[in-house]
Every structure is written in structure tokens, then in C-alpha cells.
């Protein structure tokens, strides 16, 4: 009965080709042979889906479980055209089911004597799961939503016609858990046995594409004339979206069972490194745009790069990065060694050399990521620390409040109307509000899509239940009837851009059909369910309209304000041990910027990220030299939101460093610090209105 946890195709999925199935090569439509080529895998997936559902139903019937249809519906929900996504989703669904079932049992045990508090407890649990579903990402978010939905399902089964408790929660939790477990295992078995999976190959393609485009952009920035540098900003903005989508692809690839181990945390760190490469690219472009005499210095930097990196045909070619990561790795290492060894005479040249080297080093880790997918032993990569990255907690709190109000209203309607289909109504209201709310701008559209799927499912289930199934008397007959719907639905979900709609259709169809052994044909029950399901989804849609998600502009405004607040704290507080926590927090905020907002807002965020990282570096280096006091004036001005004073103080600090004799130890590091000062000054000058913004205390 549960919907799938699919989102609209993410940037990663779009890059992988999962989202759009169009044929750009043929404007007048695909050739018949090509159509056949793409239809065959889709049809095969439809058959797999059908087989998984039939196997799950067979096992559940054989074990004589009460509501065997749950096993079939779960198998339909878990099945995904991408093998890794299916297995990962199944695993997280199991986790969500266990947590939700435990919550239902605890609620029943604690509040069995008071119906109102019991139902309030359900609404609170729904709110908690909506909160966590928004804070977490990808399949972990799905598991959080499932924990709320499962609790609603068990409590819905446990309650009588108007909400009285029958005290059978533990038995119901165990039975539902078993049925759902059977569905997950059967779907996993059928899919894993019949498919080798391609998510890792797709991830490698995605990493190579990002590495090629970031590397190409970074190196090309050294060639561009001063006015042309501004044109690269939209490119960097687009790269943020692509890098943000990497974690979805990594999560899918992690689900696959493959011959070589998968290093998920290392690959997540690779995604962070691409952000670092973008920051380096930005730093180079800014310097060359601001300084008129930096073009000659850029030429010196270019001379340090090996031929393979300076030829656009090779640098921009993702196939080369993917096919021969070893050669790219070696070329980057050579370039970095030469850049570090350049005898820079000016801070500007030092900054260009250092930024290029930093960007290339970050790309080298990206190349190692590609390498780790095929030869994990050859690639040495740092791991991303286990930490929950929350860009902003307010959208999650809004979703939690909405979920609480919606589930509360649904239970109230059920009690007041004494509707026999009230339990399904509450369950589907919970599904709509916890599963779709984390999608923010797309939440209403997703719920509407789900509502459309419900309408189609009602028609399909009515035809199957009252016209096709009655003449059948065997399990084979049931399977044939299911196949008439599930095979085309599966094929359409794999072969069209409307995957969430068709996946939900298959699941809701099974929930409405309610296959059992022996088959029961109860029109009254069917009508009740057929009204309750769209009713619950409709209530969720209404709630999304009445308590809408924050508009994108407001969300970004808050993200920028939070980042500025953190930056000012960073300038004032004790020196952190590393820049990892700061960078991780801002990367998550960069990933949360909606595509629809202005490029300037993303540029401000990257500027703040860059300034924060450089402040940490400056403080550390100034501490080494014993010049903390010289830097402190600039940091105080940054914390106070006075960028012009900060720039003046930084220039004074720069002059202090410049007056030191070259013979004094640490000359090279001092020049590096002066380059960093230049970069901070560039950022503060360019985005002065943002850094000087007044904030509420």
C-alpha cells in the first residue's frame, strides 16, 4: 500500500540518464530500432517487478499470513529500475519498518487507556518522522518517513471502527514486519539474481564528467581575458547542482552487490573535494578579474601544466578521465609539484599558483574516486567524517508541524464520522505528508502525482477485482491478472519520465486489490478503500497548500544569513582544529540552494565559504609567526560586518609581512599568507553588501 520513495529525477539521476528518456539525437522521434532497444529493458523490468510481487504473494500465502497483500505491495514499492537503488531502498525500508513498529507498540503500551492521548501520540510520532525525513537525505530520509507511516499502519489496524484500541499491537507489528520483510527479500532476490547492476558504472561516468568540467573550467580560467572571467560564474553555479547530486548516485551504487568493495565514505569525501576545486576555480577567476596585471602571472602558471592538462580536447573529455584515470592522476601530480616549486615574486602569483595547485589536488582526489570504483586497493582517499549536516532546521520544523496538524485532523475526522475506511484515510494522509513534504518546492506536485496514480489504480483494481479475478480459481490465474497490470506499469515506470507515478500506481493497485487466499470480493470494502485513499492524499495536498513550504528565495535568504552568522563567529571564536567542520556545513548549504534562485546568491555563499576557510588558514599561520595581534583587527572588523575596515586592516597586516627581510626564515610561507590576504580582500570587496549586512542579534 505504501508508495515508493522516489523523488523527481535528481540532478545526478538526470546526468545518469535515469530522469529523461528522450532521444535528443532524433528530433523527429526515435528510430524504430532504437525504440525496440530501449523498450526491451523496460519490458524486462516489468516482468521482474511482476515476478517479485508474485513470489512475495506466494510465500505469504504459503505461510498463511493474515494480510498477504502487504508482502506483494512491499515488493512493488521496493522494486526500482536501478538495482542498487532497489537493494538500498529495501534495506532502509526494513530499518524504517522496525523503528515504526516499535514506536506503535510503545505507544499502545503507554497510552492504551486513553484514545485521545494515543492518537495525539501518533500525530507527534508522525511529526518526528517528518522532521527526521527532512533533516536526513536520500534513503535515510525514506527510512525516517517509513517509520511514521508504519506506526500509522499498525495503529490503523489495531484501532476499531472509530478509534478504539484492541490491544493487539505487538501481534500486528510482528505480522506486518514479517509481511514487509518477505516483500523486501523477494524483491531483492528477484532483482539481484536477474541483474548485475550498472549504478557503479554510472557513478564513474558522473565523477568523470564532473572532474572533466571542473578541471577544464579551472584550467581555462588561466587563459580567459579579464572581462571573460565573469562568464564562468553560471558554469560554476551549474557545477554546484551536479556535485550536490553525487550523494544520490553514491547511495545507489552503495546498494549494489559487486565484486569489489565499495568505499562510500571515501566517495562522499570526493564529492566534497569537487566543491574545494570549485572554490579554487572561483579564487583564480576572481583574481584575474580584479587585477589587470595578473594575465602575465597566469601565463607563468600555465607554463607549469603538462600538455595533457592544457589541451582542451583532452581536459574536457570525460572519457579520458574515466578511461585513463592513472594518466590524469600522474599529470596532476606533476603539475602540483611544479606549481608549488614556482619561485613567486609577488603575492598575486603565489595566490594563482596555490589556488591552481589546490584545485588540481582536489581533482586528483576525484580521479582517485574514479579509480577506487574499479581498483579500490590502488586508490588512497580520506574519509568523510560521520556527521549530520543540516543546512537549516526551520524547513524541517515546518514539515513536522504540518505533519502533526494533518495527522491530528485525519484522526479527528475518522473519530467524528465513524467512517469504516478511516484507518486507510489516516494512513494515506500520513504517507502524503511525511513522504512528500521533504521535497519542499516539489512536494505538492509529488503529492498530486501520487493522487493521479491513486485514481488510475482505483480503475485498474476495480476491473481486476470484479471482472477479471472472479473466474480465476488458482494462484496462476491471480498471477496472470496481476501481470496484465504490473508488467505494463513496470515497463512504463522504467521507460518513461513519470517513474514515481507508475511505481506508485503498481503499489496502490495491489493495496486496493487486496489479494488474499481465498479471494474475497467485498464491494463495500472496495468502495470504502477507493474513497479513503484519494481522500487521505487529498488531505495531505490541502495541508501542503495551507501550510506551504518556505519559498526558495526565503530559504536561500536564511541560508545566507546563517552562513554569515557562522562566518562572524568563526572570526571571533577560538581557532578550530581543522576547517573540515566549517567546510562540511557550508557544502551542505550550497547543496540546499534551489536551482531556481539567482547565481549571485550562490556566489555569495561560495565567497563566504572561501573567506571562512582562508580565515582559519590565516589565523593558523599568523599564530605560527606570532602575529596574531596584526590579524585580530581585521577579524574583529569582519565579525562586526565592516568589510572596508577589514580590508584596511588586512592591508596593514600585509605591509607588516612585506617589510620583513627575505632572509628571515619563513619567507615562502609569508608570501603564501600574503596571497591568502589578497584572496580574502578580493572576496570582501566583491561582496561587500553581503558581508556588511546587518543581522538581528
Amino acid at each position, binding site marked *: 500500500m505504501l508508495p515508493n520513495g522516489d523523488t523527481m529525477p535528481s540532478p545526478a539521476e538526470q546526468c545518469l540518464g535515469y530522469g529523461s528518456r528522450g532521444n535528443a539525437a532524433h528530433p523527429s522521434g526515435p528510430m524504430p530500432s532504437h525504440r525496440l532497444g530501449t523498450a526491451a529493458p523496460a519490458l524486462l523490468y516489468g516482468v521482474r517487478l511482476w515476478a517479485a510481487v508474485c513470489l512475495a504473494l506466494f510465500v505469504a500465502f504459503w505461510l498463511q499470513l493474515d494480510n498477504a497483500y502487504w508482502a506483494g505491495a512491499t515488493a512493488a514499492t521496493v522494486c526500482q529500475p536501478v538495482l542498487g537503488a532497489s537493494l538500498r531502498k529495501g534495506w532502509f525500508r526494513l530499518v524504517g519498518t522496525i523503528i515504526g513498529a516499535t514506536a506503535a507498540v510503545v505507544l499502545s503500551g503507554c497510552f492504551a487507556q486513553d484514545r485521545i492521548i494515543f492518537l495525539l501520540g501518533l500525530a507527534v510520532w508522525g511529526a518526528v518522522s517528518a522532521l527526521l525525513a527532512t533533516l536526513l537525505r536520500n534513503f535515510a530520509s525514506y527510512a525516517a518517513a517509513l517509520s511514521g507511516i508504519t506506526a500509522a499502519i499498525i495503529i490503523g489496524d489495531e484501532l476499531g471502527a472509530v478509534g478504539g484500541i484492541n490491544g493487539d499491537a505487538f501481534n500486528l507489528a510482528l505480522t506486518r514486519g514479517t509481511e514487509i520483510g518477505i516483500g523486501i527479500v523477494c524483491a531483492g532476490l528477484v532483482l539481484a539474481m536477474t541483474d548485475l547492476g550498472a549504478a557503479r558504472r554510472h557513478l564513474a561516468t558522473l565523477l568523470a564528467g564532473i572532474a572533466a568540467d571542473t578541471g577544464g573550467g579551472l584550467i581555462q580560467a588561466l587563459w580567459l581575458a579579464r572581462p571573460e572571467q565573469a562568464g564562468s560564474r553560471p558554469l560554476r553555479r551549474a557545477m554546484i547542482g551536479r556535485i550536490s547530486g553525487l550523494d544520490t548516485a553514491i547511495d545507489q551504487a552503495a546498494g549494489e*552487490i559487486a*565484486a569489489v568493495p565499495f568505499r562510500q565514505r571515501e566517495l562522499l569525501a570526493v564529492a566534497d573535494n569537487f566543491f574545494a576545486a570549485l572554490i579554487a576555480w572561483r579564487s583564480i577567476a576572481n583574481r584575474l578579474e580584479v587585477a589587470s596585471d595578473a594575465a602575465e602571472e597566469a601565463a607563468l602558471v600555465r607554463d607549469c601544466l603538462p600538455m595533457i592538462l592544457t589541451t582542451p580536447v583532452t581536459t574536457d573529455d570525460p572519457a579520458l578521465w574515466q578511461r585513463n584515470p592513472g594518466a590524469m592522476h600522474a599529470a596532476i601530480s606533476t603539475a602540483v609539484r611544479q606549481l608549488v616549486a614556482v619561485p613567486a615574486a609577488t603575492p598575486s602569483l603565489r595566490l594563482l599558483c596555490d589556488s591552481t595547485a589546490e584545485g588540481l589536488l582536489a581533482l586528483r582526489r576525484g580521479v582517485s574516486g574514479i579509480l577506487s570504483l574499479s581498483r579500490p586497493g590502488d586508490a588512497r582517499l580520506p574519509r568523510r567524517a560521520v556527521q549530520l549536516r543540516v543546512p537549516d532546521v526551520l524547513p524541517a520544523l515546518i514539515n513536522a508541524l504540518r505533519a502533526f496538524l494533518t495527522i491530528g485532523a485525519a484522526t479527528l475526522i475518522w473519530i467524528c464520522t465513524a467512517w469504516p475506511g478511516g484507518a486507510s484515510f489516516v494512513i494515506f494522509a500520513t504517507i502524503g505528508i511525511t513522504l512528500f513534504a521533504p521535497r519542499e518546492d516539489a512536494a505538492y506536485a509529488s503529492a498530486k502525482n501520487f493522487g493521479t496514480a491513486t485514481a488510475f489504480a482505483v480503475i485498474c483494481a476495480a476491473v481486476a477485482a470484479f471482472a477479471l479475478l472472479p473466474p480465476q480459481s488458482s494462484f496462476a490465474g491471480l498471477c496472470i491478472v496481476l501481470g496484465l497490470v504490473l508488467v505494463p506499469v513496470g515497463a512504463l515506470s522504467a521507460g518513461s519520465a513519470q517513474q514515481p507515478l507508475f511505481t506508485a500506481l503498481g503499489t496502490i493497485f495491489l493495496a486496493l486489490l487486496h489479494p488474499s487466499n481465498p479471494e474475497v470480493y467485498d464491494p463495500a470494502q472496495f468502495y470504502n478503500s477507493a474513497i479513503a485513499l484519494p481522500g487521505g492524499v487529498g488531505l495531505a495536498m490541502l495541508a501542503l497548500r495551507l501550510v506551504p513550504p518556505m519559498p526558495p528565495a526565503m530559504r536561500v535568504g536564511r541560508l545566507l544569513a546563517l552562513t554569515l552568522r557562522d562566518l562572524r563567529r568563526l572570526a571571533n571564536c577560538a581557532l578550530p582544529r581543522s576547517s573540515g567542520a566549517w567546510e562540511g556545513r557550508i557544502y551542505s548549504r550550497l547543496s540546499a540552494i534551489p536551482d531556481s534562485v539567482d547565481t549571485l546568491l550562490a556566489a555569495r555563499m561560495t565567497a563566504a565559504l572561501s573567506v571562512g576557510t582562508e580565515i582559519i588558514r590565516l589565523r593558523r599561520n599568523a599564530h605560527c609567526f606570532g602575529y596574531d595581534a596584526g590579524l585580530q583587527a581585521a577579524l574583529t572588523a569582519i565579525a562586526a560586518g565592516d568589510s572596508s575596515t577589514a580590508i584596511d586592516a588586512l592591508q596593514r597586516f600585509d605591509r607588516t609581512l612585506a617589510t620583513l627581510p627575505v632572509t628571515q626564515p619563513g619567507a615562502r610561507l609569508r608570501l603564501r599568507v600574503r596571497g591568502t590576504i589578497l584572496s580574502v580582500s578580493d572576496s570582501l570587496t566583491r561582496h561587500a553588501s553581503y558581508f556588511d549586512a546587518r543581522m538581528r542579534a
Partner: protein
Amino acid sequence: MTYSEINLFGIYLAPIAPMILVAWVVLIPVRHLADRFGLLRYVWHPALFLFAVYLILLTAIVLLIGRSGA
């Protein structure tokens, strides 16, 4: 342990249920070992292979328990 049903807070579970779980728990370190030594590189279909290993483990557990209970 025998083939008798297990009473879990008043609900009787089939004896195969805990055996399924135990076999899965045993499979986890086995899989890690296979990953560690790159054994799965020599396998055409890793998922199929692991499923076969799981069935072998489950069968072994069922036979062991049957033997000890006899």
C-alpha cells in the same frame, strides 16, 4: 535449541525464523572476508554467489540444530 516454536511475548514464531536471522548474521563477516581478500573478483555473479553461500549457511545451521536436538 530444537525445532520447536519460539514463544516471543506470547506470540509463537516458527523455528526457522531465528535460524534465518542467525545465517544472515554469520554471512556478514563472511562477506567482509571475501571483500578483504578480493574473492568476489573470481565470481561471475556476486549476488548469486552470496545467496548460494547464505543458503549453505542456513542449511548448515538447520542440520546442526537438528543433529544437536536429536
